[in-house]
């Protein structure tokens, strides 16, 4: 990006995923940080910035808590109140460009499965207006959005099913993934809807785990252990106001974010060799394929059913398995996977010749972020 310092991801780390009973979310985050630093060939003394991500529905994951546990007092520390890793990557990149830090470790840890976190309801104020009406869990809003998509464009449940089936195929080649048992489109269609028209396979799992990244200047990254992955472009957009427009469930504002990304970066959808879509539900994958311009709006179902996103397809999507099959790391493992793929470390599931990846994520119906990552310098 013109006029600003080039920033690169120098390290990536992921803990075991699944059930990690008896450990705090913050301790899991620290383990992920150790792994990411080791990956970069750095020690904690080399870090002068810490960016963390608060856990959903609890006051843990704060930089002050994790810094204390890690035993560091970096120049720069910050915590975001929402996940997906993408927003944290942007904050770290900005901090490095502003000279607030040179080498920042970003981390997220959770024990949400072992701690039996309640993802069901919103309580208090206006938000409880959904809960009292039985609209609980993100599945409800995602089902409403998908049913509307079906109504508008004729999208079928089978077409949507290819999101989960394709991601399970990728997960089958990922040793870190929790759900690796094959899932066919017939299995998918035979399973009972939970919130019709969505099924279990359309919804994120709940799991414990940690993930971390080390981000530094491109100059410094060149001298470290692994091939640098450059942050080539970033874009964000919010959608805080939605009181008047039901369309906000299908999140058309993501199209504005995409426009911004493509126009400011000079990249085009055709340049993207692997796409990472933070997938609280499969519906988010459908929406983002369309809004980011990988297919025309309304044709996401057909695009998926053609197998484009599967292993061997023209646009590999969520090659880690995503939150539907790998683990629920709130999008963070999508970034870890993008880094591993770009370095050529993804083993059996490696996308051949990959040079440019795109990570897109959203915080519910409120904001979105996109990052283009590349090994090109």
């Amino acid at each position, binding site marked *: 990006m013109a006029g600003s310092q080039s920033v690169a991801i120098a390290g990536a780390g992921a803990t075991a995923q699944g059930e990690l009973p008896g450990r705090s979310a913050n301790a899991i985050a620290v383990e992920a940080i150790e792994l990411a630093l080791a990956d970069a060939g750095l020690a904690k003394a080399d870090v002068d910035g810490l960016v963390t991500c608060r856990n959903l529905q609890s006051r843990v994951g704060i930089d002050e808590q994790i810094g204390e546990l890690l035993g560091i007092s970096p120049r720069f520390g910050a915590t975001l109140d929402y996940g997906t890793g993408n927003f944290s990557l942007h904050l770290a990149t900005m901090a490095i460009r502003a000279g607030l830090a040179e080498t920042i470790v970003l981390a997220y840890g959770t024990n949400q499965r072992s701690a039996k976190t309640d993802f069901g309801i919103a309580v208090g104020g*206006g938000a409880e207006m959904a809960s009292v*009406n039985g609209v609980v869990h993100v599945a409800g809003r995602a089902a409403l959005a998908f*049913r509307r998509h079906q109504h508008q464009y004729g999208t079928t449940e089978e077409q949507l099913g290819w999101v989960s089936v394709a991601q399970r195929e990728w997960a089958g080649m990922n040793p870190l993934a929790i759900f690796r048992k094959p899932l066919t489109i017939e299995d998918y269609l035979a399973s009972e809807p939970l919130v019709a028209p969505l099924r279990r396979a359309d919804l994120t799992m709940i799991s414990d785990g940690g993930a971390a990244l080390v981000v530094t200047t491109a100059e410094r990254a060149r001298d470290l252990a692994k091939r640098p992955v450059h942050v080539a472009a970033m874009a964000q957009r919010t959608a805080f106001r939605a009181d008047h427009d039901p369309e906000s469930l299908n999140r058309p504002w993501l199209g504005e974010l995409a426009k911004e990304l493509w126009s400011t970066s000079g990249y085009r959808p055709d340049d993207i060799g692997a796409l990472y879509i933070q997938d609280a539900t499969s519906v988010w994958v459908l929406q983002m394929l369309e809004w980011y311009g990988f297919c025309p709006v309304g044709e996401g179902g057909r695009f998926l059913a053609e197998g484009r996103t599967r292993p061997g397809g023209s646009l590999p999507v969520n090659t880690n398995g995503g939150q539907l099959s790998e683990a629920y790391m709130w999008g963070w493992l999508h970034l870890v996977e993008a880094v591993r793929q770009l370095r050529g470390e993804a083993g059996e599931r490696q996308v051949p010749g990959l040079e440019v990846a795109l990570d897109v994520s959203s915080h519910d119906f409120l904001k979105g972020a996109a990052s283009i990552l590349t090994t090109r310098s």
Partner: protein
Amino acid sequence: MSYSGILPDIDDPLTAPFWAAARDGRLVAQRCARCGTFRWTPAEICPECLSSETDWAPLSGRAVVWSYAVYRRAMHPAFKAAVPYTVAMLELPEGIRMLGMVRTSSGDADADGEVRIGDEVEAAFEAVTDEVTLVRWDPIGRASRETETNE
């Protein structure tokens, strides 16, 4: 049997007027006293003109189904006794959107076919405890469709 679903905090000053009206069988929403814009969900300030002066104004009680979904499984323990049930995103003529529960004869609109996208529904009031009346929505023309089915 007592109601096991999630109950609102009817003493929350932000939403109390809504629940008080519902108990009287009236559907209301905030309307900005300065610019006249309706808003939902309840908020202290008009997001259009930032005025804090608010009236709780009556709504027509009619809405159009933008989309609907059927909870076949309870995604929260409080709704175990309620499944299957149908929820909807509703477009109101006052220019706001609301999430609501739509009452159909089986609870499963996919099975009974009583609600479709674009259908009109009307507000209904369900006293679930002595203090709390919830707003639900009934398909308009449900009776006529039942007649058709019986033929």
